[in-house]
């Protein structure tokens, strides 16, 4: 079970961030030392819940360092993921730490990240069929798992759309739960990460 959560978690990175690359003509090319920052709004629909669970916050993607996912509402929570693993903290206190060796798949996916950022969709083609549609101004990519009977595959489909950057991601799960992510105010910077960001990335090292 946990594996599934983890995989669900991990799969998002190549899908939500990595796709902000030059796979489609209109997409901005992201260099290895570049940093992408922006805000997100997430709407989560879980079965058995009264209504959708909404959250919003900011994110940082630095290919050379890792990813910071900072939920601000409804509860401040920061998740940092780097090649060494994952750390989640609430109010500055670590509540979860998963070293990469515990979830080796992460390492693989993290490696894939770079490739996808450079516009290399091939890395995902082992597990998904990749179908593109739309134009430069409004492109869409539909990812469908190659095998539906694989229990390690937590999604039934992933839809990514955008213009210069990824703007929307919809994740559908086999059990009917779904996530819709909207990205706003995305900006690319070539400056090194801030001191606070560096500190966050370093916190993952075991």
């Amino acid at each position, binding site marked *: *079970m*946990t*594996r*599934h*959560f*983890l995989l*669900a*978690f991990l*799969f*998002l990175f190549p899908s939500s961030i990595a796709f902000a690359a030059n796979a489609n003509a209109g997409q901005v090319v992201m260099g290895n030392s570049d940093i992408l920052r922006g805000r997100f709004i*997430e709407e*989560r629909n*879980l*079965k*058995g*819940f*009264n*209504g959708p*669970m909404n*959250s919003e916050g900011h994110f940082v993607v630095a290919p050379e360092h890792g990813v910071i*996912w900072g*939920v601000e509402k*409804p*509860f401040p*929570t920061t*998740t940092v993921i780097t090649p060494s693993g994952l750390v*989640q903290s*609430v*109010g500055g*206190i670590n*509540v*979860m730490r*998963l070293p990469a*060796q*515990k979830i*080796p*798949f992460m390492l*693989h996916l993290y490696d894939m990240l770079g490739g996808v950022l450079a516009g290399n969709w091939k890395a995902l083609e*082992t597990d998904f069929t990749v179908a593109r549609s739309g134009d430069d101004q409004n492109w869409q990519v539909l990812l469908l798992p190659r*095998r539906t009977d*694989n*229990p*390690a595959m937590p999604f039934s489909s992933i839809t990514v759309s955008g213009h210069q950057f990824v703007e929307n991601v919809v*994740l559908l*799960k086999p*059990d009917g*739960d779904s*996530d819709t992510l909207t990205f706003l105010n995305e900006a690319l910077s070539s400056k090194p990460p801030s001191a606070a960001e560096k500190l966050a990335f370093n916190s993952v090292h075991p």
Partner: protein
Amino acid sequence: MMRLFAFLWLIAVLSAGGYLLARVNHGLNFHTDLMALLPREDQNPALQHANDVATRALSHRVVIMVGHKDKAAVYAAAKEIAHQLATSGLFDMTTSGFDKDRLRQIGTFYYPYRFGLLSDEDYDNLKAGHGQAIAGRALSQVYGVVGLANGQLLHSDPFLLMPSFLTSLPLPLSRLSLDDGMLSLQDKDTTWVMIAGQVEGEPFALDVQKQVSDFFDRAVNSQRTIYPDIQVLHLGAVFFAKAGAEEAMGETSTIGIASTIGTILLVMIMFRAIRPLIVSLLVIGVGIMTALSISLLIFGELHVGALLFGISLIGVCVDYSLQYCSEVFSPHIGTPQERLKRVLAGITLGTATTVIGYLTLYLAPFPGLHQIALFSAVGLLAAWVTVVLWLPLLDRHTVLSRKQPMLTIAKEFLAFWETSKYHRLRKSLVALLVVLGIIGFLRFHIDDNVRHMQSLSSSLVTQQETIQKLIGASASNQFFLVQAPDDETALQSEEKLTERLRPLIAAGDLTGFQSPSQYIPSAARQKENRLLQGEQLYKPLLAQQTLKLDLATTPAMPSEQSPVLTLAEASKSGKPLGFLSTLLLDKGQGEVTHMVALDGVVHPEAVTAAAEGITGIHLVDPTGDFSRLLGKYRNRAIALLALSAALMTPLLIWRYGFRKGLWIMVPPSLAVILAPSLRCLAGGTFTFFDAMALVLVLSIGVDYAVFCAETSGKRKVVTILAVTMAACTALLSFGLLALSRVMAVHNFGATMTTGILLSFLFAPMACSASKKHQG
């Protein structure tokens, strides 16, 4: 009369041969498992038994990694190899039964017992009263990055304690993930799939090794023809044992051929006839065959180590046949019977002292030494009977050219010890050797480490390292054994141990461990967990959590009725935690034995210390145990060496009188004392195998000294010639072993070489002593 005895001996030899043939027909198996030589003097038979079970399980394990750049290819190939191995009857493949949904099943299995389960971290947090942190974590997982939870789970586990528990499980081989029913991992651009299982037969039996390895090669090759770029790595004691046996055999045949050719040339040059060679081989052959047959009759089966050492020790008997054959160089050749008479006393005394020396080994409580003692003593006696009864009858010798260059050398050698011309040189030589011996003694270095003794196949060692790097588990054949009256007590002891081992992982003394209690907490701990969950989480925080998560229904609370998970239930075969049974070794009468497996032990002392004071827990370290065992064997061998020297002396005193009897022991004793010192001077180490070589050096040395003491007048030169020949053949058969790459064999050979040379060098001292004494 002699003919009658010779005929009776023929019948005896033939019956021994017949028995041996019958045994061979039934399939003769030699044990190659070094553990079979373990002494049965251990204090705790239950521990010994558990140790055996665990060690055996480890030695049966086989791990195969199949790698290819194309994921589909590697899956197809691995599946086919696993299928072929599983249906061969030679392997019990555990991964082939790996269910696709295993992890989901593990979660489902644990679910009803969730109130009794907590990860170590959550346990610590709740004990410290940090329930709020856990509640916060659950919220952060729900709202964090992506859903780390599904709706259903949150309704029954609003604090997400189950995912935390499941991720904390020490699932073995952590770099592997389950994908499409196979354990696989991605390393750079190669996908690797792991296949694991157990060898069905005895991995140290030569025939099992051959079958397993042949079948494995066939299975792999069948896939290589389909996928030429496939990479296959394999790991397992059975492969190491086979490579070791093959290398030993390869080396043995090279060294064996060299030594055989050398010996044949030597005998041919000396006697200019083939007959002495044939009779010598006959003597050794009868000795070995009789020894083998009688040992099998008595012990039922033999260890290959005992066989090899036994044959080496019997090899001494070639000296007796050479003593007899060399008599043709005597000034008065005489009839074969007369020739026998001249050497009879010498070889009989030689045989008697050597048999005493070998039988002394029987006094040690080591099964290995028992076999060697009996085997070599029987062989030597049979060889002696053959020399005495058969050689004169087979002797067709008539005339021989007296011109023997070797005789001249023998004469000079004798002169070195007997004429006053060399007096000073003689003294200086002995003094020099003694000084060197003392220096060497100061540099004396003992080595019992079993890892140094073998020469492990470097290809397999590389494969092992690669596999360990790939799967992220380091080989450790150390483990804890937990003995307790029942499972509950054992689990509680393991929980104590676990608490002490956790800081060791943080400190880097140990990479990881797997204990049954991590999967199934003791009933006491489950109750404590349930209380902690109730008091620290559910009672104070459930209302708030339900509200924050906006749950449709209120989750159930932990209660007295919450079921308790038992080890018996979890380890049932077919259950997702069935693999636990590998950690549950034995369920005897009123006692259970569990195993706590260890990964990557860096500091064994720290790990050993962790178990201190917990009843029923012992660290088992088979490699360390074996090294200690070799140390014990080494000490015993030295003690027995001294004892056998002491036992031989009365026989010599009986024959030669007190002073001369003692004097005859001087040359062999000098050889035995100086040989290891000189070896250490040259940078060698002293091992059990050197000690065994010294047992042989003592016997050979006493033989040479006795031959010299038994001779007189003009026969002296002939005796020295025979001793020279004996020393040459001994050097050819044992000395060449020093060329071996296997340290055990190399050390044996090197000490033999030094010891034989010294014995030979000092042997004429016994002649001069006899002269002095008689004169």
